[in-house]
């Protein structure tokens, strides 16, 4: 057992966990944050993607003990109260989901992608960077549209931070 502290969506949590606990189990089973999904458990599908210390990672393949002291953002941490995050809005507007199983991972990957590229994304880059996220429903077209729309909003916000209301 190890005692670990992780700051998740801005709140520090200290728990005693078995050393074999995966980060995704810590989030789902110890903190009850079930928005992060487990699709494959083999590091392929990306449904478990969260942002750990500023980088999108597959939380099914990271030990919670190894993330001790770190900062995590999950899908639950994106919205500001009732106001959805730009990427969440874009997925809704562009119909970027059907069953929704892959969606939390897709959205966290998109948030990371837009930040790393500072919104400068084209379709080929988005498709390439979604390689680690599998969707069995949508055929990806609307997911790509949603990411591009959110990236465009990011660029607009960068140019005129006050002009666009959040959400």
């Amino acid at each position, binding site marked *: 057992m190890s005692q670990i502290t992780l700051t998740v969506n801005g709140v520090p949590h200290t728990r005693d966990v078995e050393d074999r606990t995966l980060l995704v189990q810590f989030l789902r089973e110890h903190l009850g944050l079930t928005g992060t999904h487990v699709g494959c458990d*083999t590091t392929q599908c990306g449904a478990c993607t969260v942002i750990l210390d500023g*980088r*999108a*990672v597959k939380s099914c*393949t990271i030990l919670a003990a190894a993330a001790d002291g770190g900062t995590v953002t999950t899908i639950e941490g994106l919205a500001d109260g009732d106001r959805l995050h730009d990427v969440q809005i874009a997925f809704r507007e562009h119909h970027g989901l059907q069953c929704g199983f892959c969606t939390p991972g897709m959205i966290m990957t998109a948030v990371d992608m837009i930040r790393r590229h500072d919104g400068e994304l084209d379709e080929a880059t988005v498709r390439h960077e979604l390689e680690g996220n599998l969707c069995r429903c949508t055929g990806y077209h609307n997911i790509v549209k949603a990411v591009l729309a959110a990236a465009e909003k990011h660029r607009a916000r960068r140019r005129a931070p006050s002009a666009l209301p959040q959400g």
Partner: protein
Amino acid sequence: MYQTTYHRPKTIAEAVSLYSSLEEPAYLSGGHTLLPAMKGRLAAPANLIDLRASPELSGIEVRPDGVVIGAATPHAVVAASAEIKAAIPALAGLAGSIADVQVRHVGTIGGSVANNDPAADYPAAVLGLAGTVHTDRRSIPADEYFTDLYSTALEPGEIVVRIEFPVPESAGYAKFRNPASRYALAAAFVARHRDGSIRVAVTGAGSSGVFRWAEAESALQARFEPAAVEALLPDPGGLMSDMHASAEYRAHLVRAMTKRAVACMGGVDIS
């Protein structure tokens, strides 16, 4: 996954002493090979010794004649390094072609080189560039380091600390990926060294892991252009054959990737 105990030593010395005193130990870097193996119960170390907190394993140093990369450096950091892109663009491009964004954020060069998966990318760069694997106890030239499938010259408990790559005249990397796993079905790293020598390292195809294709090296030495290897084929007897590709098909891919690598010197060609 079976029970295990996690350790995070702060130095290499501490890691080595843990390794020698603990039952059934294993080193852990990104864990993107080891943890999937543990989940599948193909590996069950009782003690995991995380190397990432040891400062000796981090950092990138680029000199006019060489690039030195700390073993705990994630693939994404190598891919994004402006200095490595300028010194050996094919090396940065190769790192950026490994797996996907999330895996590149976590998987490390040291873990990849220690694991020596026959379809992994970095072994081709280490062998093609005539790199050196610096460990906690010695320096191992690439030609002596990769011994067989998932096997290396590392002794039990030996830690890969840094990998050093001489800066070549130019280098190119071409890979044909398995459409499902995205690992290389065959890939070739071709380097023209400053002493005039040519090295061709092939990954994904060899039944003993990464190998140098000597006939292609001589042919390219005589005439450095894609057509120089047109009449050559590696012996399928030494290549892997599985549900994804027969040895004969892999032999053709090895030739095609070698030609493409020669055609893309100074970069990568990933398909």
